[in-house]
């Protein structure tokens, strides 16, 4: 294994080469600045003139290699460069981006249709022409949109939230060197084959995959205020998934994901294979585990489960624009400076945090996608709501961005989570938390409590038209009996509504865990993390999981005979 040595040499060489070039002009950034200024000045002479223009150019190079049951199923290398333009006509108070109330949901649909692809080469001429084309196109549309907005504002009732459409932000100048990126596809093809192979030995396991995603994303941002930001960061993710099928048709998934900003930050083969073996054992145990019944009662959410719980039911409700949009339920809008959580809980969002303990946090970024410097935002201080996550879209009482305007390339920026950290000022050991759970079980006269040990994710609704429920999808759940016995069960989802759930948090343990993942919402998929200690909740509710009605295959799996 001389791989790490190889990486080291290449990264050293690259960083020294790029260290030099960082002093020199970046030809792409220069072309962007040049065309932005030229177009903005020319368009200024038109009526109505634009008051703001920004370009964000995202270079993405990605290697994705996937195997299933020991055989390679995909190995691709892709390179894309996508442009996002924010062109605004009108003024900070009212501009073309103002939401059209009761309008069609497909406003931005097809916005890119017919627009040219960005050149992948660092060719200033070709790039300027492409930027010019898109800018002209967006200007024509912005003028139309503004007319539509003005009419809509006239015909609808006055808006509850009278904050403007855009806020001013400081001029920033930030430049990282282009990060090194190296992955040997051949080596990783062999690795993912090896990682997915053990699942093939058990007929209960019907799906398996091992996938490495290696990506480098370089984002260049310029705007008409004079800001310029260049960020470049690699990202490596190894995901292992497998699904077993119980005799009753229930599909039982398990996932294991490792993420790092460095390739050598991923665990070694032996550690991964050990986790794979453990997954196989858990899957086989799950297949034989009893099916849990719908239940309400006390439960422990492990650190990982609590993290997702907070991300879904709390994090999404403190995203700024949701307090403004009148389709949203606005759970916390009027609760600033009021208690929303128990007084021993504090929550903050910190995109500048690179790691927590030993664990890297994938929600890290130095600047957001509107060129605003990232910063820590204290959201809940000792149970009291203090702030929201803000992009450059202001809301009543919160007039400026706090560096949380984020998007996946190709989407419109909204305020999103980064690294959500839940802290408890008092905590007990895990054993003590279990003891407290058993106390609750006895007091409530329940046959058992639940322990949610691992989860695959979750979702929530925040709009007014549907109940604001959440669903956290556990994969490993135990019943804990009053005598302390733990029993693995399968087949339930953790459900509830936000305000009730928060009011039932009783205690926290000292076993803080991090959930790194990607979160999908209005502005696409963005990497986020959430971390939390394990929590004891006095009452939760679980419902039956959906279940496949497919009968098991008629013939047994083909035997490995006749292989030469």
């Amino acid at each position, binding site marked *: 294994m001389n791989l790490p040595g190889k990486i080291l040499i290449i990264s050293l060489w690259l960083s020294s080469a790029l260290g030099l070039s960082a002093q020199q002009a970046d030809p792409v950034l220069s072309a962007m600045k040049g065309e932005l200024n030229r177009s903005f000045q020319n368009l200024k002479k038109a009526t109505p003139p634009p008051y703001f223009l920004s370009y964000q150019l995202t270079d993405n190079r990605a290697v994705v290699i996937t195997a299933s049951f020991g055989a390679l199923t995909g190995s691709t290398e892709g390179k894309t460069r996508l442009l996002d333009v924010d062109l605004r006509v009108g003024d900070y108070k009212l501009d073309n981006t103002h939401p059209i109330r009761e309008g069609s949901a497909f406003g931005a649909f097809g916005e890119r249709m017919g627009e040219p692809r960005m050149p*992948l080469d660092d060719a200033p001429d070709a790039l300027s022409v492409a930027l010019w084309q898109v800018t002209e196109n967006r200007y024509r549309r912005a003028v139309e949109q503004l007319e539509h907005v003005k009419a809509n504002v006239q015909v609808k009732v006055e808006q509850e939230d009278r904050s403007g459409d855009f806020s001013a932000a400081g001029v920033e100048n930030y430049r990282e060197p282009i990060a090194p990126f190296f992955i040997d596809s051949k080596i990783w093809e062999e690795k993912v084959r090896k990682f997915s192979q053990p699942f093939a030995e058990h007929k209960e396991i019907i799906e398996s995959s091992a996938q490495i995603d290696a990506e480098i994303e370089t984002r260049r941002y310029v705007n008409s205020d004079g800001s310029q930001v260049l960020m470049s960061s690699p990202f490596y993710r190894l995901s292992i998934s497998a699904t077993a099928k119980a005799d009753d048709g229930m599909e039982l998934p398990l996932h294991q994901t490792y993420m790092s900003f460095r390739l050598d930050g991923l665990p070694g083969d032996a550690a991964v294979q050990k986790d794979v073996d453990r997954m196989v054992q858990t899957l086989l145990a799950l297949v034989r585990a009893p099916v849990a019944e719908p239940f309400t009662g006390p439960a422990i959410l492990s650190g990982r489960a609590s993290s997702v719980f907070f991300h879904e039911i709390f994090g999404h409700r403190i995203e700024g624009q949701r307090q403004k949009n009148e389709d949203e339920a606005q759970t916390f809008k009027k609760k600033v400076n009021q208690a929303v959580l128990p007084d021993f809980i504090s929550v903050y969002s910190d995109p500048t945090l690179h790691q927590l303990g030993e664990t890297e946090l994938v929600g890290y970024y130095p600047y957001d996608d509107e060129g605003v410097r990232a910063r820590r935002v204290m959201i809940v201080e000792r149970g009291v709501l203090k702030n929201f996550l803000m992009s450059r879209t202001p809301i009543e009482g919160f007039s400026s961005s706090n560096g949380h305007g984020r998007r996946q390339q190709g989407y419109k920026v909204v305020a999103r989570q980064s690294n959500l950290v839940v802290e408890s000022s008092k905590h007990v050991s895990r054993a003590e938390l279990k003891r407290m759970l058993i106390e609750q079980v006895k007091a409530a006269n329940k046959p058992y409590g639940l322990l949610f040990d691992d989860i695959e994710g979750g979702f929530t609704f925040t709009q007014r038209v549907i109940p604001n429920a959440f669903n956290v999808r556990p994969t490993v759940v135990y019943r804990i009996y009053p005598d302390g016995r733990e029993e693995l069960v399968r087949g339930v989802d953790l459900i509830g509504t936000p305000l009730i759930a928060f009011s039932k948090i009783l205690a926290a343990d000292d076993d803080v865990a991090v959930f790194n993942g990607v979160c999908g919402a209005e502005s696409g998929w963005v990497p986020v993390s959430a971390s939390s200690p394990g929590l004891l909740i006095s009452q939760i509710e679980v419902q039956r999981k959906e279940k496949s009605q497919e009968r098991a295959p008629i013939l047994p799996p083909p035997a490995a005979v006749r292989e030469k």
Partner: protein
Amino acid sequence: MNVTLRRVALVWGVLGSLLPLTAPAQDDVAMRAMQDELARSVSQLQLQQMDKPYFLAYRMDEINETTVSASLGSLTLSQPSRTRLIGVEVRVGDYAIDNSNYISMGSLRGGMAGILSSISQAPLDDNYQQIRRQFWLATDAQYKKALEDLSAKRAALNMRKGNEVPDFSKESPVRDNEKPVSGAGPGDLEGLARALSAVFKSSPEIYTSSVDVVYRDFVTRYANSEGSTFLRSQPILKLQVTAQTQANDGLPIADSIEVFGRSMTDLPTRDQLVAQVGEMAARILKLRSASSMERYNGPVLFEGAAAGEMFSQEFATGLMAVRTPMSDDSRFELFFNQMMAQLGGGSFVDKLGGRVLPEFLSVTDNPLQAEYQGHALMGAAKVDDDGVKTRNTVLIEHGVLKTLLTTRAPVRAIPQSTGSRRGWGPAPSNLFVTSDKGLSPDELRKELLRRVKERGLDYGIVVRRVGGGSAASFMKMAARMAGQSGANTSNSISEVYKLYPDGREELVRGVEIAEMTPATFKDVVAVGAAPVVYSDEFVPRIGALFSLGVSASSNVPVVSCVIPAMLFEEVSLVKSQGPFPNPPISPSPLAKQ
């Protein structure tokens, strides 16, 4: 006619001599895994007391694709990919009545939904065990679905009379297990795309331009329960150059060049292509200031590629017989035929035995010919996607429609397959339009001007390129689906000239063909003597998607037409109607330099 036939024999002979170079495929792991799992399914697959499958077909499409795009000398896309898709076709019942040709409006079962569910990914490794595993799972799912479909269909059939056309035709098995000679590979696609796209750097008045090259090596492995097996390689190289701008009054101006081949060697040389692109750029610049015209009704000559474009977009789409699927809701069948007629014209199935072209024209579909005068013919294949041997089919003889192209899903008048399943349904391979009285280019123009004079017109019209190709057909189909008609569905023409009696040509801009239907082709009054090759992707008939109801290949066929220039007695042209977007406010950044 005779000339064409001799040529066929000649080319076929060349292909034949290539065969000894191919290697036998006994060592093909994927094929062995497919055949072993097929054998197991044939002998053992049965759910309790239900029907066993009477027919099973396994297919694996291995697609090695490289897509490259460039603009102004810089790459905008370079994407190699390798995919293996497997498809399983399960038929229960018998040849007369089986689970296919049925669509349930209640459960949306069958049809398109069925096709999508029947295609899945296979491992890229030649991993015997995993390939078998994928076929095992796909077969199981398709068999269960087939059983449900068949019982639903039988229930629907009990409610009505008559279904005398069998669902599946019997054909002789084919064995063609020669390992195909792998194609020449993509070659330097990036270099070609950069070089051709750089031509536009010197024309800042052309707002957008792009060069797109796709090389796709499509290797199909097929085995069915009747004993057919084949291994087939069909590499396709497509080069497309597109450019758009606007005239000062906002009128959009666009042109394109499309070239198909099996490999880079089938294309013109790079220098020739650079010259062609340069000519196109010059023509676009000329068009910006060219004059337009309000309206024209009179004789129009389609020269070069233009005849092929009109023929394949407006006429050839009717040359297939697509079966109307039966449904649990009889209103669907009524609606289906109306919809098919709306979406790109119905089939000629009701015109069999009738005259559809002038008496001096004949049309043959010939997949056995691989090239014509040095140009690759993209429809050449020995076996079709049903595993049926391909053949030469005379479709139209002296203007009279003799038969239509079919798959193994027969229609009333045509009980056997013509070996024409390409991808989702029937498609032409290489269409040869032949005539017994071709005129030289000069004679054709004289004939045009004679008619112009007769009609008392000031000039005639020559169309050299329609533009848009299959993308235009697709947009038209979309427009029809959206209920639009009239100008929106007409053909905007990219290269059209006024031809004056003194022989002078004048380029005209912003002209569209008002209405062109298959019936218009009856008004062809003369054709040229020197046919040219025009190839394009064939937009599959939507009908085929529904009627198939079983697994399909994901191949999008490319059809070649060998077709002479055509003089139509009467075509209506109209001026393109706005609204057009405003021209840009800033000039191109290239203009200032």
